[in-house]
């Protein structure tokens, strides 16, 4: 074996210059390959629906697909951060509920200023994240258990603060009043604009996706989040702020869930204690279909959006075909399993050829 120990000689020989920008380039390529399948699947599903039901391929239906995915996608963005760092959050749906319900109670029953009430509701979401994060990182309770507990705890809180009643700011209970200007501000958050009734909630989703996308893929925070999720023990030894970043991931997840809850409240205009609870599994499905690994260290914002889009396409399409709710549930199950199976297969193929 030749012994070339001169550093300069080695440098030129070992790492070609072309790899200067390759880090980002290759990551993008890999992402494209992995996500390519997902978007092909969305197109195929869309094509099948258009064939079966020509009404599917209209702008109005597409807009309603986007609307249908908005709140799921916003929650899924937060969940992606938690899953990338190698933890699980089961409580986001209850956070969604507590945020919407406490907003309603503060605003409608107690006359709290809407702007202030929104801030408090977001703070509640953050507080839930801090609570989850502290229990997971300081007491080392598995996040699955912590957040399962938080889920029930928060649902109980929602029942308590709302006194198990339904609220609609347009029709406040007798003896209470909602200022007209505040009402129009609140409903204006998700106002439908343009000739196709494009809800502003879609733009909230896109805006938040840009923010989370920047955090996860373009910031130091996201880079370390991925590293920590990939190997928490090595991250600790490398002195990365493991605990702080895990807590931050839970906080962002809580805040995004609270935001989703309020946006849906604004759009639907009614809120009841169990609002959002049924979105737990669709949100998880969106993240997993999007290619995030439950083992941590892997997940993308584009993937998660794609997962949410695929689910919304399926839900809307099946509803148009009027196949009945059982088929929707079954398709959700089949798609989740197939997506993960395909991803595993693709990964295996990739490592074999590499």
């Amino acid at each position, binding site marked *: 074996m030749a012994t070339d*120990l001169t550093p300069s000689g080695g440098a030129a020989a070992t790492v070609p*210059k072309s790899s200067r920008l390759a*880090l980002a380039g290759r990551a993008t390529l890999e992402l494209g390959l992995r996500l390519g399948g997902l978007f092909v699947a969305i197109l195929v599903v869309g094509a099948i629906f258009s064939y079966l039901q020509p009404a599917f391929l209209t702008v109005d239906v597409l807009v309603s697909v986007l609307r249908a995915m908005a709140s799921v996608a916003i929650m899924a963005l937060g969940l992606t951060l938690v899953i990338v760092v190698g933890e699980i959050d089961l409580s986001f749906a209850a956070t969604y509920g507590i945020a919407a319900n406490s907003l309603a109670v503060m605003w409608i029953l107690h006359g709290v200023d809407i702007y202030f009430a929104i801030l408090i509701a977001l703070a509640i979401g953050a507080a839930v994240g801090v609570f989850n994060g502290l229990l997971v990182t300081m007491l080392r309770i598995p996040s699955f258990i912590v957040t399962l507990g938080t889920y029930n705890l928060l649902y109980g809180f929602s029942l308590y603060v709302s006194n198990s009643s339904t609220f609609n700011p347009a029709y406040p209970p007798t003896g209470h009043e909602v200022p007209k200007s505040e009402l129009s501000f609140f409903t204006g958050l998700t106002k439908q604009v343009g000739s196709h009734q494009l809800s502003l909630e879609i733009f909230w989703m896109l805006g938040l996706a840009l923010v989370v996308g920047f955090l996860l893929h373009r910031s130091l925070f996201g880079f370390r989040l991925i590293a920590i999720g990939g190997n928490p*023990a090595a991250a600790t030894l490398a002195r990365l702020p493991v605990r702080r970043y895990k807590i931050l991931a839970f906080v962002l997840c809580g805040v995004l869930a609270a935001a989703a809850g309020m946006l849906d409240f604004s759009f639907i205009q009614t809120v009841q204690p169990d609002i959002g609870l049924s979105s737990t599994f669709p949100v998880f499905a969106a993240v997993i279909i999007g290619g995030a690994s439950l083992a941590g260290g892997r997940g993308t914002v584009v993937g998660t959006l794609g997962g949410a889009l695929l689910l919304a396409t399926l839900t809307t399409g099946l509803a148009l075909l009027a196949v009945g709710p059982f088929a929707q549930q079954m398709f959700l199950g089949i798609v989740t399993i197939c997506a993960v199976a395909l991803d595993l297969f693709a990964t295996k193929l990739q490592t074999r050829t590499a």
Partner: protein
Amino acid sequence: MSPPAESQRFGIEIRGLRKAYGDTRALDGLSLSAESGEVLGIAGPNGAGKSTLIKILAGEEVADDGQILVGGEPWSPSFAAHRVAVVHQEPALFPNLSVAENLLVGREGTHVLRPRLRREDRALMDELGIGSSARRPLSLCTLAVQQRTEIARALARDARIFLFDEPNSALTQEESGELFRELHRLADAGRIVMLVSHRLSDLVAHTARVAIIRDGRETALLEGVRLTQEAIAHELVVEAEHAERAVDDARAVRPSERESDGSRAILRVSGWTHRDGRFSDIAVTVRSGEIVALVGVEGSGGRELLRSFAGLERTQGTIEVDGAAGDRPVRRRTAYVSATRELSLFTNLAVGQNIIVRLGPEIAYGSVVLRPRQIARLARDAAGRFLVKCRSIAQAIRSLSGGNQQKVAIASAMAKRPRLLVLEEPTRGVDIQSKAEIYRLLGGFAETGNAVVMFCTEVTEVFDAADRVHVVSDGRLSEPLVVADYDRIEALAREISKLERHGQTLAA
């Protein structure tokens, strides 16, 4: 314990065993033989192929080539008869089950009912002195009881071949005495017993013959009057010709040739005591330009002492790194690399990302926005400087060879520009060429006003890379040996093993 069914003598013969992992040849035509009733010692440096041999005999791995004969008949680990029982350093049992249940797993003899302990099983446990712990969950038992459970499990399955893998490295003096009595009883009852150990004194005291394994082959067999600690030490450290030449290059820039007196103290500890008593009242100073090795058998406290310098153990006493005291300043000035690459590398990140993973402000504007060009530049520079052989820094870290992975791990630690590098077995499982390169890099690092402390299990590593070496035994630090005082590695090895023994006799 039940005597073997008949008094027939039999032996195990291993012929030309080969096993490769990718490009690495773990076993390269290994041949060994052992007779019933004897204790065969097996010794070899790290990476010599001992653990591969154990895995093959235990049926965890399949050899690429070669033959294993037991009693003259071809044998494979899947045969129920003549099963090989491995008694591990860390017993491989079911920690959630009780001692008795561990004995039963796999031979329950029932498909429906909860399995029950037979009378022979009870007798066996009593004989091994674990009858009183029968109902205790294994996870709450001492290591010695766990090992006995492993032995009992093997005896209950009528295993004829026992392989002890560093069995007493974490046992107390008394416990290991017990263990060796057990080992001899097994041999006296006509079983084949093999003992893999790093402790030369144990090999000499408890075995009739010692086979030395190096580079996947048996290189020497010591018995009778030739079986002495010095002889084993000699066989262990004699390196092949080509290896010596590669390392000579590394020695050419050894820091010992630089003057180190009068230079700044990089690490200074005093009254340094482990909270759980693994070491106590250590005082040591490491100056800039120095590479200091710590050596100690498993359980001596050496590994813990090293980790404590990186703030990874609970300690009392004072520590100063580059003149700074206090938790944060010390942490900022030290970087640690673990012995296992599972704990130093991120497999979901590329080569380049692994190199810069410890950096913060250097790779992001305002510690927020990543700078991809800067990252690629830093990573490429470091990969070049550390002679990491890769096609591109965007390559998956797992596609690199072990030696290059280790270079990435060390590069990552050095990227943070620490003053003190704390390394645990810096070249474990690394090929000889990469070893020499790593030693050169460490020398270069120390030369620029820094210091390196490393924990070593191989004398060759001390001889090739360190300026001085402290032997840790029973939580105490020996006086340093200056490596430059030794022309030949055998002399250094003898001195080190003398100091190790000294500590053991003190404890006894």
